């Protein structure tokens, strides 16, 4: 079967874009191959590890099992999109650095996206709740301890900032 292509228009990290995409391509392949979004990692390509997690219209998805053509008209955010234009790290990225939540780093962007999604809810969660909410991502290096610390820290910072108005 010869590959078929389709024009896909969507917003990537705040910027509207469009490209002809192989209709069979996964979103993770499109983001990596056509947009060089290297933060989108692939650890299993069947929706088990969470390394490929991205935000689609504010919700987390495993981009490896999401067809690229499905993002038509949608808003996609990868870890690259959290970093400021001048390269400044976002609060959750900085927390991952400061809390030593990064080791090999392969799972890191996926975790940061999952964290960002729950942080945007601006609610306070217990550590156990945080563990549950992050359970779609696997990490073999950190034992999750410092990852949970980083998320908890940013959660408190954002709640405090909100309380101050």
């Amino acid at each position: 079967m010869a590959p078929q292509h389709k024009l896909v228009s969507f917003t990537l990290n705040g910027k509207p874009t469009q490209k002809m995409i192989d209709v069979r391509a996964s979103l993770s392949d499109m983001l990596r191959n056509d947009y060089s979004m290297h933060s989108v990692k692939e650890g299993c390509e069947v929706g088990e590890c969470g390394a490929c997690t991205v935000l689609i219209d504010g919700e987390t998805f495993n981009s490896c099992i999401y067809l690229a053509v499905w993002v038509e008209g949608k808003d996609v955010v990868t870890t690259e999109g959290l970093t400021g234009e001048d390269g400044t790290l976002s609060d959750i990225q900085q927390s991952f650095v400061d809390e030593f939540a990064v080791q090999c780093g392969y799972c890191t962007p996926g975790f940061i996206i999952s964290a960002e999604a729950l942080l945007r809810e601006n609610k306070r969660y217990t550590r156990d709740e945080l563990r549950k909410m992050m359970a779609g991502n696997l990490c073999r290096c950190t034992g999750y301890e410092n990852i949970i610390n980083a998320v908890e820290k940013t959660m408190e910072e954002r709640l405090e900032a909100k309380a101050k108005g």
Partner: protein
Amino acid sequence: MSIGKSQIRVDAPDKVTGRARYTDDLCDKNALVARILHSTIAHGEVKSIDTSEAEKVPGVVKILTCFDVPHFKFGTAGHPWHLDPGHRDVEDRLLLTSRIRFYGDDVAAVIAENDVAAAQAVRAIKVEYEEFPFVLDPQEAMKDGAPQLHEDFPNNILGHTTIYRGDFDEAIKEDGLIKVEGWYESPTVQHCHIEPPISYAYMEAGKVVVVASTQIPHIVRRITAQALGLPWGSVRLVKPYIGGGFGNKQDALYEPLNAWLTTQVGGRMVKLEIPREDTFFATRVRHAIRFHITSYVRPDGSFAAREFEAFSDQGAYASHGHGIAAKGMGAFPQLYPCDNLKCDAYTVFTNKPVAGAMRGYGIPQAMFAGEAHIEDVAKALGKDPLDYRKQFLMPVGYADSFSRNVNYFDSFRQCIDKGMEQFGFREKQKEYAAQTGDIRRGVGLAVFWYNTGVWPISLESSACRIVMNQDGTVQLQMGETEIGQGADTAFAQMTAATLGIPFEHVHVISAQDTDITPFGTGAYASRQTYMGGFAVRQTAEQMKAKILKHAERMTRMPVSNLDIRDGNIVRTTDNAVQMSLGELATNVLYSMEYSEHIAAESTYQINSNAYSFGCSFAEVEVDIPMCKVKLLRLTNVHDCGTLINPALAEAQVHGGMSMAIGYGLSEKCLFDEKTGRQLNDNLLDYKLCTPVDHPDLTALFVENHEPTSAYGTKALGEPPTCSGAPAIRNAILHATGVAINEAPITPHVLFEEFSQAGLLEKTAKSVPAMAGADR
């Protein structure tokens, strides 16, 4: 002083933004892709291969089979080359093989323009096999008449070594001895680094270039050249950031095949990514080892004699081989010394996936068995398990004649005491002493022992290069590799400390390139911080001497009165800053009289090793009717010498503890008895710990400056994985009175054990209707 500070990881900002480049991020998007056809039988011979249908798949470039490969046998273990042929690894591999030894062996490879075509073509290849009987259990494989895997190894025994001391047979005749005996099973588990193994290869300047996710670039270069029959210098190996390895990538996996594939398509770039499923069965696993331990104990607790047998499941090829079981056995007489010993370790081929190195290298297995056994001994004697260990563990001053390691500080007892205090072990022990009911809690502990690096068995050598920029900052290059543990950061801290410059002034070149990087054997055996430390220190001192020589000429002060502090040349008599290193370096480089590009490079050969010690404390809650264990707390205590970076050390311990939890409670590769096929070759069915499977993890340290070490440090990479599982096992024993001698301790295992112990009778009686409905 940069040592002992929790400096931020040098690679963290790039890793949280997606800027850090891993192998696939660097590969040309139009590279050809390769896929491997794995055997669908466990044992036999490929009779013929029909590729005609596969060739027709659009996009297929070339199909290569086991009948096409060069006949250079090679070994895959990531060990330094040995000049003595008797000490080399077993060379039993070909790039592809017609002689099938496990379900998943490598039969053919397809090179195609894209992944879809490659996958389609692999499915379209027809293979005709002659099937042989197969064997999956090491003790079965040792029997006469069992299916034979390799001609040179009768009864499938790859290795058998012993430690015999004193007179065992005489010693057990002593009156009044108590005999404690047990069989202990440890599982086959997989590393599950989140980045699957991947490489790409192409030809350039007459060389084969391989970019690979490996822990051991210099070793993989050598093995690749051997497998292809090329001069070693004709292969260049590049290692960018890697997404974890844990020992799996301490083997040459598919890099040699990948290198050969590019040579078969005119040097075009070929990418070979191993899918997650294949990673489970077609790369490496941890050796499952079955132990049989018998202790003859006097009523006072002392050992009259001890016997140890280990049967290690090697799988189909030698890889790291007998080293794992031998290391596990080595720990046995050292931990609880005894004069009369009989120890035998066997490593046996079976028709299963190949076992190689995995974090802990035989010690997690040996500690699960050994520390379960010690608990049983203490119980049989009616002694407190913690006091019993403290009384009979390796005494302070103990020296091992082979490794020449010395227990200088009584680290074991210091670690146990610290852990006991902070964990509240005694309080919990009392609190949980007399429980009945369905839900019970318990606490347990276990210790571990570990060496640092591979001397005196193998070479320990490390090289370092430091190059100064005009601004006084330096580039640091090591042959040792960053694989996530934080090696780059630790080396930068050492360099800064010895050279007298700020941490931020050290630029680490993280990627290894065997054409450029100084030699180092790589990330394994928890060696790098210790071994690399010698090379960094020596090179930084040489660099410093060069700088001070220039400073002497420029300031007309004697070298003895000069020092480098915080990036400045300082006169030590009055601490006056003479100039910055930047001024010095610029002046020296562009001088019309004495121009020099200030750099230093040196190799340090290390002829020492160091004991690393520690223990784990676990608290569990057991739901007896549900046969479920909930881990409530886990604390590890380590003496790994001086901490170079405390926060990084702590993080390293968390990761190892996590792996130990999986080892103790959930992880196990399952095999189909009828076919030899792995049943759970994916991350859904293989139960890796997720964030919810962990309690908060506590890492504690006892810091005794290691006297043999350049910076006072010693092994930490693997030790955290070693004692968690037996501590959990012992906590379950404390909670329920049931000794479980098989890991992982899953509900399946507990159901059997609790049934036998009579704990489930009440539950079983209450569901007679269900039992009846079954019939």
